[in-house]
């Protein structure tokens, strides 16, 4: 249009040129959309046509297990703290063998925005997002997942990592000095070097 400000600021432009340019610009716009009419739509017909999602796409959250099949989650509250929509809640408690475990662990998927911050915050690789995004329910209460619904029987991405082999605290997995990269416990009562 001839009222275009940027063009008005150029005094050299002749009004005729301006009108010609405007019409040319408009014409190219209409030509572009007209050409689109003839292109094949890019829409994928979701339920019939399913795309294979990348392995690291972020959807339904699971709780993975250690290589020895035990719960990885130590209920450290980091995921619930970082969750921007507060959809994760839990209660930590002392578990068998001196481990710290979640007494209950709840994710409200009706609130979850699949941002993946929980996965990023998780120090034990317990909480992981899977590509399974088809997670709808008729009853909203069914979107509230408890620990049993979340637990899977594999280790997910870091399937060889076991937090309690590195932690340095005594559990039934490893005692003092038995963890990765640890010296045997010292004798504090000795003054010998």
């Amino acid at each position, binding site marked *: 249009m001839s009222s275009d400000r940027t063009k008005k600021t150029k005094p050299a432009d002749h009004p005729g040129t301006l009108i010609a340019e405007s019409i040319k610009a408009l014409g190219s716009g209409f030509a572009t959309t007209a050409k689109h009419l003839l292109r094949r739509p890019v829409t994928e017909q979701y339920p019939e046509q399913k795309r294979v999602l990348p392995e690291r796409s972020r959807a339904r959250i699971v709780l993975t297990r250690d290589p020895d099949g035990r719960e990885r989650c*130590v209920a450290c*509250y980091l995921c*619930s703290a970082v969750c921007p929509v507060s959809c994760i809640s839990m209660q930590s*408690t002392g578990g068998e063998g001196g481990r710290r475990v979640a007494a209950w662990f709840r994710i409200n998927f009706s609130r979850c925005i699949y941002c993946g911050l929980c996965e990023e915050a998780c120090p034990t690789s317990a909480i992981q997002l899977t590509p399974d995004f088809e997670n709808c329910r008729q009853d909203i209460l069914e979107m509230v997942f408890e620990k049993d619904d979340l637990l899977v029987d594999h280790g997910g991405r870091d399937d060889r990592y076991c937090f309690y082999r590195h932690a*340095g605290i005594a559990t039934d997995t490893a005692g003092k000095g038995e963890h990765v990269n640890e010296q045997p416990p010292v004798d*504090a009562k000795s003054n010998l*070097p």
Partner: protein
Amino acid sequence: MIKLIIDNLRVEVPPGTRVIDAAEQAGIMIPRFCYHPALGAVGACRVCAVQVLEGSCRGIRMSCMIEAEEGMVISTTDEEAVAFRRQVIEWLMANHPHDCPVCDEGGQCLLQDMTVSGGHGRRRLPVKKRTHIDQHLGPLVVHEMNRCIQCYRCVRFYREYAGYTDLGVMGSAGRVYFGRRSDGVLESPFAGNLIDVCPTGVFTDRPSRFKGRYWDFERTPSVCIHCSLGCRVTVNTRYREVVRVEAAHDPQVNGWFICDRGRYGFPYASSPQRPRSARIDGRKSGVDEALDEAARRLSGIAQRHGSGSVALAASGRVCLETLGALTRFGSEKGWRGPFFRAGPRTAEALQSASKNLEEKISISLKDIEKSDFILLVGCDPVNEAPMLALSVRQARRRGAVVALADARSVQLPLDARRLALRPSQLTAALMRFAGKAVADGGAALSDRARGFLQACRDSRVDPAVDEQIDHLGLAARESRRPVVVCGTSAVAPDTPAAAANVARLLAAEGRKAGFFPVLPGANALALGLAGRTADHGAALREALEKGDVRALVVVETNLSELGFSADDPLLENLEALVVCDCLDSAAGRAARVFIPTQTVFEAGGTFVSAEARVREARPAFRGGTPVAQVSGGGHPPRTFSPDIPGADPLPAWQVLAALAREGTRVSADTLRKALPAPLCGAAPGKRLALPASAPDAFQPPEDPATAADGGLEVVVCEHIFGSEPLSRRAACLQELESAPRLGLHPGDAAALQLSAGQRVAVDCGRGVIEGEIEIVNEMARGVLLVPRLRGIDWHAAADGPLVVAVADIRSVKPNGES
């Protein structure tokens, strides 16, 4: 004032201020691990390094180790200093384990904060980590030595500040170890402070272990109600449950610390046994219905037998609002009471202690730390008012003389001069001490004071101890800030008044003397100021026997505190026993109408501490059964409901208003205003406006020496764990309770032909106390110590020191046969 420049900011501080404090004043928080305002500086952690640009010591210096100088220029952001601190953090982390996710300190960990702010993320050291074996330190504290960064805060607190020696430092070089010689329960009743003091997770809280993170807790400023000192605390709640109580800083009272009773005494509030619904004649009912029924029965009885046939009973754990309700509705309705304390002796002792507290001689715990002579009379600080012991210890560390006159073998974390005296001797001993402590005739004294001084000089106790008392008095002559601390439970009724008079006398001489009462119950001072001496448990007992009292309303009180046992036959005489309490007590179970009340965590409340300081506890959560108990521990209910289960209990003052048919919509403010002066002017955070001088100041006791020969004075001993009615419900503290044994001096035991471990029954007139004998060396002769612990029927002797004849003590077999 000294002027210096820190990070281009002009700071003005008093001489002797450390640079780290000066910076804090200017709003610059220099990192620190080992430095703690209460524990001082040792320069162990090296993380408070700053660059001194101008001053007598230029270069990288530890800001906690240097004092501010005039014209000093300091930079905390200097490149070299920052690099130094970053280096320090990295090497402190060299052996730190990889366990933050399972460490309860995570989220409130100084080391974590510093590591993150120092930018240290990956361990570069190619050496394996040093490890330590942990110790089991009892039911309160968890030990995890791997996390230690050798700041020495724990031992500095435990050994130097608190004065206990079973935790120490061992090893050398990279193997420095903080712990006990071997596994075992920490002996100090202040061990819980290790958790607050430790900058990382070496010492963490065991009862709240794995219960949650700092950021998930609702933190509410509150006050500890487990003794009369009124220490400031922070209450952490989550999911309708108190999870943890921490010390809150109060420079005038508790400083940075609290005792373990205050820290771990809270589980009564979320106990599964706690009654949460009302009962009428043993049948569960709604609270409104029960209030109606109780009010109906009370007014019926008042109509039939006169309004004086309804009596109220209270204890030191009711808050000021409830006390106001008791006073207001009691006087409006013509009800008797409130009755508190077991009998005339304890009631009078409390009354004389509270009414003698006057402006000039009233002092705070902080003032005790600054005093140079402390006389503890008939009080056992560690067991009756634990933080007082720490204050006395700080004074002792500064060189004060501490003397202790008591019948019991009082254990203190300091060395004190001891006088083992029977309760009946205490008044005379005090006066004799005062007679010696005042140097001359006291020309500056008023006539009344001079009269009291004369009575003091005439006072005699016992030739065997008179000389010791005289020595003590002479030692006190030079003191500038003498303090008399007086208890109320193991003393003669006139002892607190005498103690206050002694302090007055020393103050009249021109010294900064102080009187500090140790009272039974968080709000005992208010009860003493508001109540009448005549309304005590023995008077109530008499009225019950005569049939004058037909209905009894018991408000947040254990009947044992009034000298009744739960199955006392006299209670059968009552037409209505109405109990309002937050605890599951025997009286509550026996009550015709039981009405549940809220705890201080839900209702909040105002309390007046022993030093006349008004303390406010804010409501920490709205009440209701903890989520963990509602859901059966699995997970919280999945369905939403707007009402809170178990939220029936009301604040006690609202219950009282409803009983007086005033409706529950009564404002706490108007209730406080209903109290007599000075309580009606109580403003939270301030001290009560005490009278300038008590009416019966310098009144010499009528008959100071009333030593009874041939009998034993029975003293009920408080214990830090197990005596106080709220905290004794905490499972973690029950593990620490002492075995209940009757204490006897070896001389008395020999005279009575009793030996340790032997079981005896003592007839106290009102009841029989039965228990095993323990020989206690340091106690006074002629005294029988009865612990106020479960397993002993101590309430028969609840009314202060009473005398039993030797004939009343007989040996029994363990099965109870004579």
